[in-house]
């Protein structure tokens, strides 16, 4: 019953706040236009995949926008917890809001990129199966990064500190990837690495599940 109420409330929140939707569309358009920059029909499938899923663009534009979207929408009412008699409602709201925001951002981003690929006549060179799997990995990565940021907010009570720590951690992993060490967060940016072969999506799912469970613990102990 409580879960149903949380789902309904989050969905209504998402539909009601048109400003957030506009913000997500703008963020997705900005990031997608950068991803599509330099696309042309003469690119090979491999080069096309690397251009669209360029890891530096994701570090500098996409992930910061993801984090900003997650952290600006991180608001809850202590009244809800009092009315339901449990803080599980706050945790549920947080997780669902994160899920909705990140999924919407990714859907808009994918649509804009698809538009860019069609516009440049390069869609036929893209391996759609591989691109689909990469988008799935990206979605799971987004969820992991955002849930880590949420966990830090619940622990540190500072959205700025959460943003900085999460982004610095992602930047550190980026530096590792550049140095040749495969990092899970940037697994989507490479067509095939030992990490991807080992089932990066499962690892990401497991880690996200762990962080979300820890978030429940942190929300239960959070001073409202």
């Amino acid at each position, binding site marked *: 019953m409580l879960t149903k109420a949380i789902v309904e409330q989050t969905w209504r929140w998402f539909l009601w706040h048109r400003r957030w939707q506009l913000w997500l569309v703008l963020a997705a358009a*900005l990031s997608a*236009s950068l991803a599509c*920059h330099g696309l042309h029909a003469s690119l090979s499938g491999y080069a096309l995949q690397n251009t669209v899923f360029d890891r530096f663009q994701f570090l500098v*534009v996409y992930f910061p926008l993801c984090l900003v979207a997650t952290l600006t929408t991180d608001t809850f009412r202590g009244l809800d917890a009092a009315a339901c008699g449990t803080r599980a409602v706050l945790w549920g709201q947080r997780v669902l809001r994160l899920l909705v925001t990140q999924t919407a951002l990714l859907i808009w981003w994918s649509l804009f990129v698809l538009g860019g690929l069609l516009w440049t006549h390069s869609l036929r060179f893209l391996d759609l199966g591989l691109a689909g799997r990469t988008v799935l990995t990206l979605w799971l990565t987004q969820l992991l990064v955002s849930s880590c940021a949420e966990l830090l907010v619940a622990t540190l009570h500072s959205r*700025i500190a959460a943003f*900085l720590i999460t982004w610095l951690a992602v930047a550190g992993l980026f*530096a590792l990837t*550049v140095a040749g060490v495969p990092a899970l967060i940037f697994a989507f940016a490479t067509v095939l690495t030992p990490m991807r072969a080992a089932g990066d999506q499962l690892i990401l799912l497991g880690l996200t599940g762990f962080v979300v469970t820890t978030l429940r613990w942190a929300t239960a102990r959070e001073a409202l």
Partner: protein
Amino acid sequence: MSHLFFRRIERRPVLLSFSLLMLISLIQYGQSSMQIAKRSSVFHDSPYTMWLSMDQFSFIPILFFLLVPLLAAIPGATLIAKDRQTRFTQQLILRRGGMRVAWGYLVTSFLLGAVLVGGTLLINFFGFFLLLPNLKPDFFLNLNIAVMSQDTLWVGLYYTHPLWHALASILLAATWSGLFASFATAMAWFLKNRFLTVAAGLLLQIGLMAANLLLPLPVHVSFVPSDFMRESAGATLSGAVVAGVTVIVVLVVAGLTMIGGRVRAYESNR
């Protein structure tokens, strides 16, 4: 009037920003020290070729200059956002007037941002004098760092008076850090969300990066602050473009502050 704002500066956000800036700067210092220690001869290197703003072979300077808009804005933007939330700004406006309060916050924020980033860069730069001899860079011996007129402003000054060039670069970086902090402070008059206020400078930089890629200037001259805040960038630079972007951002910040100050003053007096 300005004493009032300086007295109200909170120590924690200032320390957080400064610690993070210093942490990134120290990582670059440590990395460079290890590189210097590994080399058999150090006499081609000098502080002018190895310090944070000149380091072209590491990811750390890129990260530093990407994060500057956020870290420089934290102390000033947090102060005004908190004051707006507690309605302290309304009390101030009623006693001192909207414009004076708006400019007070703006100047405080600008100085805080400039001092934090400028201070960190100065410490990093002078720290390298502890490791390396004070040698003037040579166009041929230091060809690897590729300092030329396309990617460095006032390149003649770099080879003749490198200390002045480095100090001028720090001054430019400090000015732009102050501008980012001022932009976040000016946006605070319109935004209710404290996190979004602090991140406004970062979003401005991301927007400029996107604009630079999608609407390039002739010869692909970069107008992204993270490029021209460095002493030598990995992009084409032009003094006129830097001056133009600076003037535009100054005008935008001044405009936002004036409108914000007047609107809030009107609200307070109503």
